[in-house]
């Protein structure tokens, strides 16, 4: 599992996750990502390359969303329909709140 961070246009931070988002990999990240919303207007978490997601991964996404909410920053997660992360976010009920099908619509949603 890895998460790469990029600053893209207009103060939007892109986090690109890949591999398995599970308990073992997300626990250390919870600390690292606490300031992710600082200094930007939007955070976009790209889950397209994530191959496995469990409840700990869901917690990570929720934490990110919460950090952004507290900072007044918009948050979206890119989870293509039919993919592993999308299905789990649907089951846990988080999908409709914050997921977008691809990067373009994610950026568009944050720019608004």
């Amino acid at each position, binding site marked *: 599992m890895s998460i790469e961070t990029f600053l893209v246009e207009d103060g939007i931070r892109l986090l690109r996750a890949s591999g*398995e988002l599970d*308990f073992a990999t997300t*626990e250390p990240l919870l600390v690292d990502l606490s300031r992710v919303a600082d200094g930007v207007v939007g955070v976009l978490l790209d889950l397209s390359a994530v*191959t*496995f997601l*469990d*409840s*700990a991964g*869901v*917690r990570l996404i*929720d*934490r990110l*969303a*919460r950090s952004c*909410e507290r900072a007044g920053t918009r948050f979206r997660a890119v989870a293509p329909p039919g993919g*592993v992360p999308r*299905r*789990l976010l649907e*089951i*846990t*009920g*988080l999908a409709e*709140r*914050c997921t977008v099908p691809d990067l373009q619509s994610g950026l568009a949603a944050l720019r608004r």
Partner: protein
Amino acid sequence: MDTQDWTSAPVGLLTLTADGVVLEVNEALLHWTGHCRASVVGTRLPELFSIGGRMYWETHLAPLLHAEGRVDEVAVELVVAAGRLPVLLTAVLSPHGGTEARMHVALSGARERSRYERELLAARSQADHTARQITALHQATAAVSAATLVSEVAEALLSTAAYALGARAATVWLTGDDGELHPHHSDQPPLPAPPGSDAEAVLISLLGRDRVQGVLRFVPASRTELLDHDVLTSIGRQAGVALDRAHLYERSTSVAHELAHSLLAGSAPKDDRFVVAAAYRPAVADLAVGGDWHDTFLLGADAVALVVGDVVGRGLSAAIAMGQLRSATRAVAAPGRGPAVVLAELDRFVEQVEAAAVATVAYGELDLEAGQLTYACAGHLPPLLLPVSAPPRFLWEGRSTPLGSTASHGRVEASVDLAPGDRVLLYTDGLVERRCSDIDDRMGRLLTVARRERDQPLADAVRTITDEMLHGVTAPDDACALLLAWQGPHPASRAGAG
């Protein structure tokens, strides 16, 4: 050589006939031995030797002299007035053959050399002895430090006694909770116990930090093999410390175990109108519980609540949060409140308990008279309904986000009517999520297995379902399943209704 030189040479010199009779002897040798010339001349040389020397002469030296013509620096002992005198013998046979042949013998004192040799031998045996001690200490230390439990330390001591201390009999006595010494009963008797009052027995006290943790009693195979006092004391100390540690470990694990079990404590309520069975598989086997939980409790006289939940994470911290959330669920549930309200209350609870955030819960209330199941899932996988007379199906209604998550605005619930004999399965994601499989495939698999087990006794069914779903899972998450069957209303109300 000059006669004077011969006589006063600093070595013993003799001339012998071919068969060893002394013809001539010098002063030095007479001086060493204290014999007078008359008693030496005319006797055979070996008569001056110790018995061993005599035998050596007859069996080895004489034949060698006749075959090779000489022998060099052979150690023999002369019998002298003061005891024995070690000497080195060098002899040559003169080249004349027959009866005229002469043997010229020189004996040089070997007292210094033999002392040196004795010292060398002693030093070597001391080194051997020290090496044995160190090896024994190492073996004992390695054996007792590898042991975890008290009984394992005792076994390690017994094997140490056998292999490192060379004991032919041994017992370990351990200090019990009463402060008295009790013999440790070995599972595999490697050595007989030492007889009761054997004066040969060695006792080592196993001295812990605050008290004597026990005694090792053994009979060494031989006295000479016995290790030094210091080494035995060290072994005793090592074992004592190992026993301290083992006692501490046993106490703390039993505390952890009891605490862990208490988190899932409480037996299912007894009521003729339903039957319930659960299976629980913690990811961390040593801990007995994890972040998953199940619960069944009565709500008033005619309803039962069924809960399965999953706190994020594994291990002790997840288990603690789980215990709190489980209690909180019991506390906020009340007759007439309904699942949506219970979940909303739990949202407020997890705001205070960070570790329980984003926990998922499936919560249902079954009306035991009417058979109506009202349920709600907070980010949790859907319950599986197993009707008597219809195919099984997942209950996809009543869904909302995990507890305390950002999106948890508005909890919803749904209802389904059960017929007597219908079953409902609640479970956690550990039962269905696998890295290499699609979640929908896995839920399909659960449906198939649960349908096949539909008519098995409840406890067997839930165990079989869990076993099959977890078969071959290498890095498991916590997994838990709760299966409940509604048996129908009370006979009295049934009669009333009919």
